[in-house]
């Protein structure tokens, strides 16, 4: 397949309602189950090792009108929480058997139990992912939390996660993440050959399919992209930061590029490329995954890292990607992103890295003002 064919296929998959994605897979896997994970990180490996289809749960995007959820969540709550609940009310996630949330923020925490109350027939689990990154007991605790999730799967679906199966799933996801890392590295080197919208759609599609399938098309894509013809342009190389949970509309990512940026790094779909390297080691796979969560995680606004300042990871990202500036892109009302913005911005200023901020909502549909702001920023950087 050519890159264009692969990308078309990915776009088609991403546009499909989440429940329909699950139902189609289940039709080919009679008796199969599908479990969807809310951002940011969830152990897809465990879902996969139980023989189920792991899916990303990313709200309603631009397509879902709120008819019930806005009476449950107030106006000052981010859109993804509301539209995720709405997916349940409108049966758009019918066919999905379980939902996994975690302690990324106070909104997600309340959403998890409200989801459960309103839809008591589906499996809902709330994971406590450690915020302490340095105490000796943390990795072991993370492993025990992963084991607890598998007990939940067993209780709800009668599906066990054995150690060999989990070890195999870790390998599979290691392979998937290696492809994703390669694509990100490719974009840093040749952003003219891989736009951010294309990369995003590909990555998002990879979270809606069995990882084995995604690995296949990512390999094909990578091979095809190397042959793609594209001339580098005079654009500002930027890192996008803050869009790790609620999804920015594709139109916004397009505008960013049209207004003169090459996005060379970002935190889109961060949870699906959570580990900085392969989940390593031998032995108990639960322990290995728990330890990786604590010691091999990418910097993220939803996890406290006691070993470095909030801005350190971002500054490293800027340097690694040879970027010239940062575009903060927090979702409206997203507390983790909005709080980190302050410390990150101060860190960037100390390091002399220019930045701007663009707030978004998943349903945003006019981008003209944003386009002007970005153009002005780019011009000030490129022509000063």
């Amino acid at each position, binding site marked *: 397949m050519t890159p264009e064919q692969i990308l078309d296929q990915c776009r088609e998959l991403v546009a499909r309602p989440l429940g329909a994605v699950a139902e189609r897979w289940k039709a080919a896997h009679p008796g199969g189950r599908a479990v969807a994970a809310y951002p940011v990180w969830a152990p897809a490996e465990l879902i996969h090792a139980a023989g189920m289809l792991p899916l990303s749960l990313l709200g309603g995007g631009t397509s879902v009108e709120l008819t019930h959820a806005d009476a449950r969540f107030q106006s000052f709550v981010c859109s993804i929480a509301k539209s995720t609940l709405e997916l349940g009310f409108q049966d758009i996630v019918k066919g999905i058997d379980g939902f996994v949330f975690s302690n990324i923020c106070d909104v997600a925490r309340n*959403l998890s139990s409200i989801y459960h109350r309103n839809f008591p027939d589906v499996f809902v689990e709330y994971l406590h992912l450690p915020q302490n990154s340095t105490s000796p007991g943390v990795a072991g605790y993370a492993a025990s939390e992963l084991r607890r999730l598998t007990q939940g799967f067993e209780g709800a679906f009668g599906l066990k996660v054995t150690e060999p199966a989990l070890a195999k799933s870790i390998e599979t996801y290691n392979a998937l993440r290696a492809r994703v890392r390669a694509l990100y590295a490719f974009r840093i080197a040749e952003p003219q050959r891989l736009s951010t919208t294309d990369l995003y759609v590909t990555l998002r599609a990879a979270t809606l399919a069995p990882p084995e399938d995604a690995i296949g098309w990512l390999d094909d894509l990578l091979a095809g992209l190397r042959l793609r013809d594209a001339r580098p342009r005079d654009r500002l190389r930027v890192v996008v930061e803050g869009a790790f949970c609620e999804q920015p509309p594709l139109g916004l990512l397009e505008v960013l590029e049209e207004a003169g940026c090459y996005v060379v790094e970002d935190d889109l779909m961060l949870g699906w490329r959570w580990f900085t390297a392969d989940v390593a080691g031998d032995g108990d796979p639960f322990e290995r995954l728990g330890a990786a969560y604590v010691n091999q995680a990418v910097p993220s606004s939803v996890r406290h890292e006691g070993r470095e*300042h909030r801005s350190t990871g971002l500054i490293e990202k800027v340097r690694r990607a040879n970027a010239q500036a940062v575009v903060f892109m927090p979702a409206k009302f997203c*507390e983790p992103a909005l709080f980190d913005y302050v410390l990150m911005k*101060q860190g960037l200023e100390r390091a002399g890295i220019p930045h701007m901020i663009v707030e978004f909502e998943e349903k945003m549909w006019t981008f003209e003002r944003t386009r002007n702001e970005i153009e002005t920023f780019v011009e000030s950087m490129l022509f000063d």
Partner: protein
Amino acid sequence: MPAQVTERQYQGKVHEDSRRLMSAWMGELGRAEAEGRPTGAIMISGNCVELLRACHILPMFPEVTALQNAIRHKSLPLILKAEQAGYSSDNCAYVKADIGLFLEGGMGPGKPMPFPNLIVCNYVGCNVYVKWFEHLADISGAKLFMLDVPFLRAAEPSPADIQYVVGQLRELIALCEGVTGEKFDIDELREIIGYSIRAEEGYSRCKHLCKHKPAPFDSYFDSINLMGPINVLRGTKEVADFFDVAVAEFEGLVAQGLGPLSEERFRTVVEGPPPYPYYKNFRNLFAKWGAVAVQSTYSTVGGIWEWGFRHDPARPLESIAEQMLRENLTNRSITTRYQQIRRYVEEWDADALVIHSIKSCRLFSAGQGDMRDYFTRELGVSTLLVESDLEDPRYYAEAQLKNRIDAFFEALEHKKVVVRAAGRRGAGAPPAEASR
């Protein structure tokens, strides 16, 4: 409308003593730097103040500073200062007021509020705590210890949860020893816990006294007099004694049939923190209707003592861990809170639920529309939902609040009349109505 309800203007010994104790603590904090006394910042929710006390570290609570500034109408300039520095209008205003205090020159070496020597983030439910203390550590340069308390995901914490928290408590003790240069003494902790238990017992007793009609105090607005001592000063003899006095005073009021108002017409349960910048105004909107809060969820952020949990000197660290994990509102899911409120409504015989939705605090408020749905539709409890903020005066719209509150109590009054009439006729109860 029936005859005017008035406040008895009763402030009493509880109010006086609470102020005195809290002022003494603030005084100690103000002198700490000069006296070379180590301080430790900590959060209110499910806190381990006993441990800091046993380690001879004077606890400081940024939340209390923030709320005191709001009550004194000083919060807005601080919030604005923080917003100028990049904080969003959508961030929790408690944090902004605290950081604003630093930016305004009110916190730091030689300032009225010292920098803490140690920052203990008891991450008990609220994710904003993590951010807040990261920022505090950033400005103060103090060591930050992230005490990760797993959220309560089942009825009970698991053995792994308890072990995990106890392990971190031990680490914290070692850290405190490093700060003070003093050896930790477990027997001293046991003694402190003994005082905590007396306070917990007293706090619980006070809250149960509100089952009486009339309730002797307003369990939302007056609870603040009890919350300071129980959450901040728990583990001291003074506070154990304070609660003996409080219980005696409230028992006295019960014996005399006295409550905070001239008449108790409605018994409410209140959910959510109060609007500190307009505390008295907000209270008046309810008082004029003869509405008394007989229970509140806010009074349980630090600990839920009324169901019988107590610290245990025989298992000091384990019981501290259990309290952090289970026995406080913040570390429990919002739907578990529905059951807490339900018990309050039933056992304290309340007429209505009032939800005060706080923009700053998503922990409390995100999803309270669902809570209203549960109480009105599933339980038939009359429920009022109003919105403002606990720290930012810009979100307090008195006229709008007054309209909603008046309309609600008018409807509730009407409902009572109908119920009484139906009772006289021996007919069944009228249909439950929901006020939105």
